[in-house]
C-alpha cells in the first residue's frame, strides 16, 4: 500500500483544496466558482481514469463516451422528454453500466495497444454519432437543460452546484482510495503489471478489469451529467478527441496512482491556458511547453511517487539525465 499512502504533501494539498472550495463557497467570485466547479467535475473523470489506468493498468480512452452518455442522457431525457433530471441521470448511469459490460466483454480481452485502439474508436465513434444524429441535435447541441431540483431548491445556485460537484469529486476519491487500499486494488495493481502471474494467484483477471471499467464508467457518467447540468448546454465538442487527450494530460500531470493528482492535474489543464490569456495565439504553445516541462522534470507527474525509480528509468530518455546533474 506504499503507493497509496497519503504523504505529507498530498495531505496538505488535499486540505488546501478543501479550504479553497469552502472559502470560494463564501467569498468566491463567479469566475472562481465556475472554475472550481469545472475542476471538480473534470477531476472526477480523471479519478475514474486513475482507477482504470493507474490502478488496473487498462489504457482506456473511452471515458469521454461515458461522459457523453451522462451529458446527452440528461439533456435528451430531461429537456426533450421532460423526465425528472435526477431520474435522467440514473437512467444514464444504467446505460453506461450496460455499455461498460458490453465493451468490457469484448475490449478487455484485448491487451495493451489493442485495448487503447478499441476504446479510442469508441470515443471517436461517440463524437461522430452525437455530431450527426438528430436526437442529439447534431452540431447544434442541446441548450436550456432543466436544472436539478430538490423540492423547490434549485441547483442553479452556483454555490450549491459547487458543493454538489465537489461532493461527487470527494465521493469518487473516497471510492478510489477505499478500493485502492483493499485486496481489490491490490489485485488491480498486480494484474496491471503481470497478468499471467496474477492469474496463477487465482485472480479472475477479466472480471477484475470489468469491475474497474464499470466503476469508472459510473464516475465519468455522473461527472458528464453534472457538467451539462451546470453549463445547461451539451454539444459534440465536449467529447471530441481534444477532450480525450486533455483527460490523459490531467492524469499524467497530476501523477498516475496519486490521490490528489487528478485534482491538481485537472486544475493545471483548466487554469494554465487562462493565465496565458495575454499571449493570445501563443496561449496553447505556452501550455504545451509547461506540460512538456512537467513531464521531463517529473515523469511520474507532480504527485507521482519519485521513489519509483523503476518507472522513472523507463520513462525518462537518457539524455535528460544531464539536466538533473547526472542524478538518478
Amino acid at each position, binding site marked *: 500500500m506504499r503507493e497509496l499512502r497519503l504523504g505529507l504533501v498530498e495531505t496538505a494539498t488535499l486540505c488546501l483544496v478543501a479550504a479553497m472550495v469552502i472559502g470560494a463557497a463564501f467569498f468566491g467570485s463567479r469566475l472562481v466558482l465556475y472554475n472550481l466547479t469545472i475542476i471538480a467535475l473534470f477531476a472526477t473523470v480523471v479519478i475514474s481514469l486513475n482507477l482504470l489506468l493507474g490502478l488496473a493498468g487498462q489504457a482506456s480512452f473511452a471515458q469521454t463516451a461515458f461522459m457523453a452518455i451522462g451529458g446527452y442522457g440528461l439533456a435528451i431525457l430531461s429537456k426533450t422528454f421532460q423526465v425528472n433530471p435526477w431520474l435522467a441521470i440514473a437512467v444514464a448511469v444504467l446505460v453506461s453500466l450496460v455499455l461498460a459490460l458490453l465493451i468490457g466483454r469484448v475490449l478487455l480481452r484485448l491487451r495493451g495497444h489493442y485495448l487503447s485502439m478499441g476504446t479510442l474508436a469508441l470515443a471517436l465513434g461517440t463524437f461522430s454519432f452525437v455530431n450527426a444524429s438528430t436526437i442529439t441535435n447534431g452540431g447544434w447541441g442541446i441548450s436550456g437543460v432543466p436544472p436539478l431540483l430538490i423540492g423547490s431548491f434549485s441547483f442553479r445556485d452556483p454555490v450549491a452546484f459547487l458543493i454538489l460537484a465537489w461532493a461527487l469529486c470527494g465521493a469518487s476519491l473516497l471510492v478510489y482510495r477505499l478500493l485502492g487500499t483493499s485486496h481489490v486494488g491490490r489485485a488491480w495493481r498486480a494484474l496491471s503489471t*503481470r497478468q499471467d502471474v496474477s492469474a496463477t494467484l487465482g485472480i479472475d483477471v477479466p472480471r477484475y478489469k470489468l469491475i474497474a471499467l464499470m466503476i469508472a464508467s459510473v464516475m465519468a457518467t455522473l461527472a458528464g451529467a453534472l457538467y451539462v447540468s451546470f453549463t445547461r448546454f451539451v454539444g459534440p465538442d465536449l467529447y471530441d478527441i481534444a477532450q480525450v487527450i486533455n483527460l490523459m494530460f490531467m492524469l499524467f500531470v497530476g501523477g498516475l496512482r496519486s490521490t490528489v493528482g487528478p485534482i491538481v492535474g485537472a486544475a493545471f489543464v483548466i487554469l494554465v491556458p487562462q493565465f496565458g490569456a495575454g499571449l493570445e495565439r501563443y496561449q496553447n504553445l505556452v501550455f504545451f511547453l509547461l506540460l512538456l516541462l512537467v513531464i521531463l522534470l517529473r515523469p511520474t507527474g507532480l504527485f507521482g511517487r519519485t521513489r519509483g525509480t523503476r518507472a522513472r528509468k523507463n520513462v525518462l530518455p537518457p539524455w535528460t539525465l544531464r539536466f538533473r546533474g547526472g542524478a538518478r
Partner: protein
Amino acid sequence: MMAAPASDATLTVSGITKTFGGLTAVSRASLTVAPGSVHGLIGPNGAGKSTVIGIISGFIRPFQGDVRFAGKSLGALGPAEIARLGLARTFQQATPIAGLTTLENVMVGMHVHYHASVGAVLLRLPAMRREARAHEATARRVLDEFELGADVDADAADLPFGKLRFLEMARAITMRPRILLLDEPAAGLNATETLRLEAIIRAQAALGTAILLVDHDVPFVFRLANEVTVMNFGSVIASGSPDDVYRNKAVREAYLGPARDAEATP
C-alpha cells in the same frame, strides 16, 4: 506454518501429449502426486518438465490426456480457476510483481482467501476489516519465517536474487495450496539457502500438500522426493522410488551418465 490442506487432493496426470509445431514437447506422460508427498520430476534440458508444469497449471492445453485433481478434470480450466481449486506454482524465473512491496506480493498471493465483496470493501464492513487484518498478519508471519521480515516494505522487484526465490516460495505457500508445483526452486541458490529451501518444502509436505518438484539439482531432488519420475525427449523413461530410479539403467545412460555418478549419489 499453515492450516492443513484437505487431504483428498491427489494430482493425477494421465497420458498428456503436447507438440509445438513439429516438436513433441511431451508425449503420453503420466504421473501421480499424492497428498503429503514430494514427487520429483527430473530430466535433461528440454525433456518436457516445464511443459508438464505448464499443462497442469493451465497455461498450456495438452493435445491428449487429462489432468485430474480431487476428482475434477482440469483440462478445460484456465490458470485462475485452477489456482482457486488449490493449486499454487512457482516459476523458473522468480516472478515478483513490480510496484508491489514484498508484503503486498505475498498478500496478493492470498487473493483467493479474501471473501469480502466490492460492496463490503467500500463500506469497510467489520468482517472485511477483520479479514484484511488477519491476512496481513499471516503474510507478515510467513515473511518472517522466510527471513524476509526486514524487506516487507521494499519494492519486491528490487530484492536480490536469493530473496526473490524465497519470496516466490512464500507467495505460493501462503496460498495454502493443496498442490504445489515447484519449477526449479533451487536454481542459483547457495548451499545454505538450498538447505533452508529443503526444510520449507519438507514442512509443506508434512502439512499434507502434494508437491511436484522439478529441478536440475539431482541430489537435491533425491533427498526430498518420495517418488521420482524421469523424463527424456518428452517421454517418461522411469519412475519409482528414488533408489529404484537411481539404479535404473535407462536413467543412468540417458540422463545421469557414468561420469556423473558421484554427484548423483543421494
